[in-house]
C-alpha cells in the first residue's frame, strides 16, 4: 500500500508545517513579509483640523484678530501661515501672529479689503460672517517665509504685513541678534499690534511711520548704518517691497512675503524652461502654465488635476527660482521640486529634470 504511506506522510508533513508556522507567527505576527525601515505612508503632507473660533475682536480700524483653539495643535515657527476654509468654501491663507509656544491656540489677524480696492471676498467674509463659537476647518501651518538664523535682522512691515513679522521680532529678541524694525501704515488707528511692537522693540530699534502724519517712510535712513550681511524680512504692499528691494545694501539678503501672491492673470511673467534631460528649451507664455508649454514638447508628461492639489505633475527642478503656487508640497519638497501645473518661475528661467 504505497499510496496510504504517501497520504500519511503528506498529512504528517502538513500538520508539522502548520504547527511550525503557527509558532513562528505567534512569535512575530508580521512574519514573513519584509518591511521598509520607515514607512512612507501615514505621514500626510498637511493635516486638516477643525478648530473653534474662541475670540474675535477688532484690534485696530478695519482689522480683526481671530483666536482659534484646539487641542495639541501642530507646532509652527515665525513666518508660518494657516490655510483657512471659510464657511462659503473660500480658501484663504493668513499669517500666524501669536506665540509659537502656545499649542492650544492659533492667532490670526486680517484687514477688511473692500471690493473696490481689490478685495475678493475673503476678508469681507471673515469680518462679516465669522462669529465666536463657530467651527472652522484649517490646514497647515506651513512656512514660506521662515526666519533664518542671522547675526543681524532688519524687519519692514507695512500695515497688516506686521502679522508674520510680529513673532519674528520676539524670536530675534530672544536670539540676542542685532535687529531693527520699520513699521509703517496709513494711520496709527489702523495699525494693529502697535503697542506690542513698541513693547518688544523699545525706542531704539523701532521706527513707526504713519503716512497721514509723516508721509512715506525714509528707507535710506533705515539702511544707513545697517550691519554687514543683515537678513532683511519685509511684508507689506507691493510698492513698499519694491522700494525695499531698490535700496537694499549689497551683502544683505531680502526675504519677501506678499499678501497678494504676485498672481494677477494679466501680469504674468514670460520665462524659459530648459528640459535638461531631453535637451530642449520651451518658452512659457504669460497666459499658459509650465505644464502646457512642456506638453507641447513632451506630450506624455503626467498630470491630472491642473489645479495644484493632486501632485501628479511634480517635477524635479535643477536650477532657477520657483514661485510656488500650489497648496500641496511640503517646505522640504519645495526646495528641489515644483508642481508644473500651477507654479511658475521667478526670475526668468527654470531648469527641469525632464
Amino acid at each position: 500500500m504505497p499510496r496510504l504511506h504517501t497520504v500519511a506522510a503528506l498529512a504528517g508533513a502538513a500538520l508539522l508545517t502548520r504547527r511550525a508556522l503557527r509558532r513562528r507567527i505567534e512569535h512575530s505576527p508580521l512574519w514573513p513579509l519584509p518591511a521598509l525601515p520607515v514607512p512612507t505612508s501615514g505621514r500626510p503632507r498637511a493635516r486638516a483640523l477643525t478648530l473653534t473660533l474662541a475670540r474675535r475682536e477688532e484690534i485696530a480700524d478695519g482689522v480683526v484678530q481671530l483666536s482659534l483653539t484646539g487641542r495639541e495643535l501642530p507646532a509652527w515657527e515665525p513666518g508660518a501661515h494657516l490655510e483657512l476654509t471659510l464657511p462659503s468654501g473660500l480658501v484663504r491663507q493668513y499669517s500666524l501672529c501669536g506665540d509659537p509656544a502656545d499649542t492650544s491656540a492659533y492667532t490670526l489677524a486680517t484687514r477688511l479689503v473692500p471690493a473696490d480696492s481689490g478685495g475678493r471676498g475673503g476678508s469681507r467674509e471673515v469680518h462679516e460672517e465669522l462669529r465666536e463659537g463657530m467651527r472652522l476647518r484649517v490646514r497647515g501651518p506651513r512656512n514660506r517665509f521662515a526666519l533664518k538664523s542671522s547675526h543681524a535682522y532688519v524687519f519692514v512691515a507695512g500695515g497688516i504685513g506686521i502679522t508674520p513679522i510680529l513673532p519674528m521680532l520676539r524670536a530675534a529678541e530672544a536670539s540676542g541678534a542685532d535687529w531693527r524694525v520699520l513699521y509703517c501704515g496709513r494711520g496709527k488707528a489702523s495699525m494693529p499690534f502697535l503697542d506690542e511692537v513698541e513693547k518688544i522693540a523699545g525706542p531704539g530699534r523701532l521706527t513707526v511711520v504713519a503716512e497721514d502724519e509723516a508721509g512715506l517712510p525714509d528707507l535710506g535712513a533705515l539702511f544707513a548704518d545697517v550691519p554687514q550681511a543683515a537678513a532683511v524680512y519685509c511684508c507689506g504692499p507691493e510698492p513698499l517691497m519694491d522700494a525695499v528691494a531698490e535700496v537694499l545694501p549689497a551683502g544683505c539678503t531680502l526675504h519677501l512675503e506678499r499678501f497678494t501672491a504676485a498672481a494677477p492673470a494679466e501680469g504674468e511673467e514670460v520665462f524659459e524652461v530648459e528640459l535638461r534631460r531631453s535637451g530642449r528649451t520651451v518658452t512659457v507664455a504669460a497666459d499658459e502654465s509650465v505644464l502646457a508649454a512642456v506638453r507641447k514638447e513632451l506630450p506624455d508628461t503626467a498630470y491630472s488635476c491642473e489645479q495644484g492639489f493632486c501632485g501628479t505633475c511634480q517635477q524635479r527642478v535643477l536650477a532657477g527660482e520657483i514661485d510656488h503656487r500650489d497648496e500641496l508640497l511640503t517646505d522640504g519638497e519645495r526646495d528641489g521640486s515644483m508642481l508644473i501645473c500651477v507654479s511658475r518661475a521667478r526670475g526668468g528661467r527654470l531648469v527641469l529634470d525632464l
Partner: protein
Amino acid sequence: MSNTQARLPKPVTSEHIALKARKVSFAWEETPLHWIPGDPFTTHTINVLHLLLPAGERWFVHVYKQVLPYIEDDRLREDVIGFIGQEAMHAQAHDEVLPHLKELGLDPAPYLAQVDWLFEKLLGDRTLPPGRARKWWLYERVALIAAIEHYTAFLGDWVLNADSLDRKGADPTMLDLLRWHGAEEVEHRSVAFELFLHVDGSYSRRVRTWATAFSALVFLWQRGARFFMANDPTLEDGRASWREFLAKGRQGMLPTAGAMARSIPRYLDRGYHPSQEGSTEQAVAYLASSPAALAALAAEARATSPLPKGAA
C-alpha cells in the same frame, strides 16, 4: 468551448463619464477609535483600507504615469489622466487617517512598513533592461491594477449600499470618506480594465494577475485585521476570526462571502466589462450630496489660487 473565443468584453456605453479629481479634505479629531460603536471587528476590518490604500494607490499612480506613452486612444488617455488624479487624492485622504489612529493609541507603523515594502520594492520598478522585459513588467502591473480595481469597484458599490452602517451609528466623517472614495471607484471602474485591454488584454494574463491580486488581497486583509485587533489598546484579547467575518457579512456590516465568491467568475468571464457592474448613476448621485465632495466643489467654484496672507 467553441464560442468562448469569440466573446469580447461588452461595455455598457451609457455608463461612460468624464473623470476629474476632487479636492476633498477630512478632519479626524472627532472620530473615535471604534467608529462603528461597539463593533471593533467591523471597524478594524474596514480600517485595513487605510493601511493598504495610501501605498497601493500611490503605486497605481506611479505605474500609470509610466504607461501614458503607450496609450494611443485619446479618450482613454483622458480617462487615465482623470483616474490618476482621483487615485492620488484617495491616497492622500486615507493617509490622513493614520496619524489619528496613532494618537488614539493604535500605531499602524509596523504593518504600514510592510505594505509600503510590498508596493514600493516588490511591485516597484525592478532593475530591468529596457525593452521587452521592462514592458512585460509594466503590463503585468497594469493587469494587476485592473484586477484590484475589480475589487475596489465591488467594495465601492457595497459601501454605497451598506445601510446597516448608518443604522449602527457609524461616524459620519468616516462614512463620507468611504462613500466618497467608493463612489469615485464606481465612477472610474472601467478605466483600469480598458487600459489593460488597450495595452495587452490577453486572457491568460487576466487570469494569472487576478489569481495573484486576489490571493494578495485576502492575505493582506486578514493579516491587517488581525494586526489591528491584536494591537487595539482597548481590547483585552482582540482577535479576528473568519467566523466573525461571515457573521458580520450576514448582518450587512461587511460584504458577504457569497457576494465575493460570485464576483470571481464574473471577472474571469471573457465577456466581462466593469461597466456591467455597479451603477454610475448612484455614484454620481452620492458625489452630488457628499459633504466632502460638495466642499471641494465650492472651493473650486470660487477662485482657489493661493492668495493673501493678511489682506484681501
